[in-house]
């Protein structure tokens, strides 16, 4: 089966600094790909390249067989690829429902249809009781859920989640894990950046490890935890 996302030799330079250098991997439909690596490994840069915030300096990004590098983020979203932000970006002075409606309006011009779609996504992330609240007033756990509901409302085929569990307590993280697994059941493909190793091992079908901008390893979760290079990258030379 042709991959839904194919990343071919992608490099991104900022001046002389290679934030990503010759990264290649591909994703099959319906899978969850974990993207891990130490701080500064280039995970978010790769997200930004994939979703159109930066054009990659070199290499190609193919979504459903179509070359998408250089496309603007709004075009990428319309093609069916949506991302959340590591630092959440609620539309603070709009209500929670209105936030999700903005996402839903990517697929309709009718406010009524968008409102129904938004209400449905709020039920999926269990935030419907906060629909009328201003998004700026939500605690962090609910802001993260709002981010997910909002991108789901754009009806993506591929979802890129950038540290949706960052800053959450264990109970909230568990809710997000269940949510990600539920989204998978609906047939959506997901790429997940996460620092919580236990969580990423549980949810991922495959994992890509980045280190200093380069792909260090790729494989099933079990292969990754036993990979000596990965252990070195995370814990340092002497412990490996």
């Amino acid at each position, binding site marked *: 089966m042709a991959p839904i996302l194919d990343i071919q030799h992608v490099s991104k330079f900022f001046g002389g600094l290679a934030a990503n250098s010759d990264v290649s991997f591909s994703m099959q439909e319906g899978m969850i790909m974990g993207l891990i690596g130490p701080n500064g490994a280039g995970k978010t840069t790769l997200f930004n390249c994939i*979703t159109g*915030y930066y054009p990659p300096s070199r290499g190609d990004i193919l979504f459903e067989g179509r070359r998408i590098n250089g496309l*603007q*983020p*709004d075009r990428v*979203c*319309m093609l069916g690829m*949506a*991302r959340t*932000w590591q630092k959440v*970006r*609620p*539309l*603070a*002075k*709009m*209500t929670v*429902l*209105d936030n999700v*409606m*903005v*996402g839903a*309006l*990517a697929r309709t*011009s009718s*406010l009524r249809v*968008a*409102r129904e779609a938004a*209400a449905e996504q709020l039920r999926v992330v269990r935030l419907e009781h906060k*629909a*009328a609240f201003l998004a700026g007033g939500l605690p962090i756990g609910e802001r993260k859920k709002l981010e997910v509901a*909002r*991108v789901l409302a*754009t009806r993506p085929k591929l979802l890129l989640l950038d540290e949706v569990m960052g800053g959450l307590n264990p109970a909230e993280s568990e809710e997000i894990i269940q949510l990600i697994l539920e989204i998978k059941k609906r047939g959506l493909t997901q790429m997940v950046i996460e620092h919580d190793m236990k969580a990423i091992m549980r949810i991922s079908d495959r994992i890509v490890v980045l280190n200093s901008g380069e792909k260090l390893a790729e494989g099933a979760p079990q292969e990754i935890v036993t990979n000596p290079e990965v252990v070195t990258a995370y814990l340092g030379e002497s412990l490996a």
Partner: protein
Amino acid sequence: MRALHAPRGLALLPLLAFLAVLLALALVPAFASSPYALHVMILLFLSIIMGEAWNVLGGYTGQYSVGHAAFFGLGAYVTMMLMQFKQVPPWWGVWAAVAVAVGVGVFIGAITFRLRGPYFVLASIAVAEIIRLVALNWKDATNGAEGILSTEIPPLSIGGRLITDFGSKVPFYYAGLALVAMTIAANWLVQHSKLGYYFQAIREDQDAAHSLGIHLALYKNIALAISAFFTAWAGSYYALYVGFIDPSTVLSIDISVQIVLICIIGGIGTILGPVVGALVLVPLSEALRSNVIYEGLQQAGIVSEGSRIGSFLKENLAHAHVLIYGILVVIVILYMPDGVLGFAKKMAARRAARRAAAAGGSR
């Protein structure tokens, strides 16, 4: 959300209130025949139109233009130039003026909307200044600093029947009222459509909006076009009403700042905000100009005309109206960051909360 739960009839309430106010205002000339009263009302209408127009771009979309004098001036100039030099009646000329302003707006937008925050503000000021300098120096077309004086507005007749000869303030009053109604209606339509949601998303967070499928440049330009359209209308209306324009009155940065102030004072990003702002600023500036403060002090017996302080104040308070106006604006901005309307809402909410707490306590 409100619409999701509110019964349908409730949504009609604001519309009925709006129509009732319009009807009441339509009856005003029949009772108040004082030209000064009509003059103040016309200034009020003008301010409301300008404020509501800016609101679409600045209020909903969050692009703070301090260069709206460009569109105001273009509206005024194109209408007057066509009327005086080409004998085009203003009710046709105004459409040309609006088209020019929208065209210039979209052209400027294509360039300046790459800029964000303060850089966009600076660019908008620069563009307005460029247009002012063009009007000042392109003497063949604009008369330069001399300005354009309208000799006479041709009478408006439809199908041979005379509608008005623009001989009094009354036709201007009705034209202004109609423009106010249309501008507010346009704001309402924007707010209750996909456009309004997208504009607000751009205001709240451009990167987030971009990632949700919103074409930033396209929607910012739509907001600018709507805003320029109504601002040019206001400029055209002003020019015909006053009958004289020059670069320093219709294209100066004072106009741009005045427009922004109407919205900031009233409350940004709401339909009623600019109305409230105009209701505060227009009477205030008229009162200060006509030296109401001195008369009040004199009548209260605090100062007398004969005394040195009295004559000093009488001389100078009228001149100081800009200063006093400025101080009041600073006070409002400091203590009511969401404008007078936002402040009133907050007060109402606080009182409701207190009442609820009191009710809870007595249980």
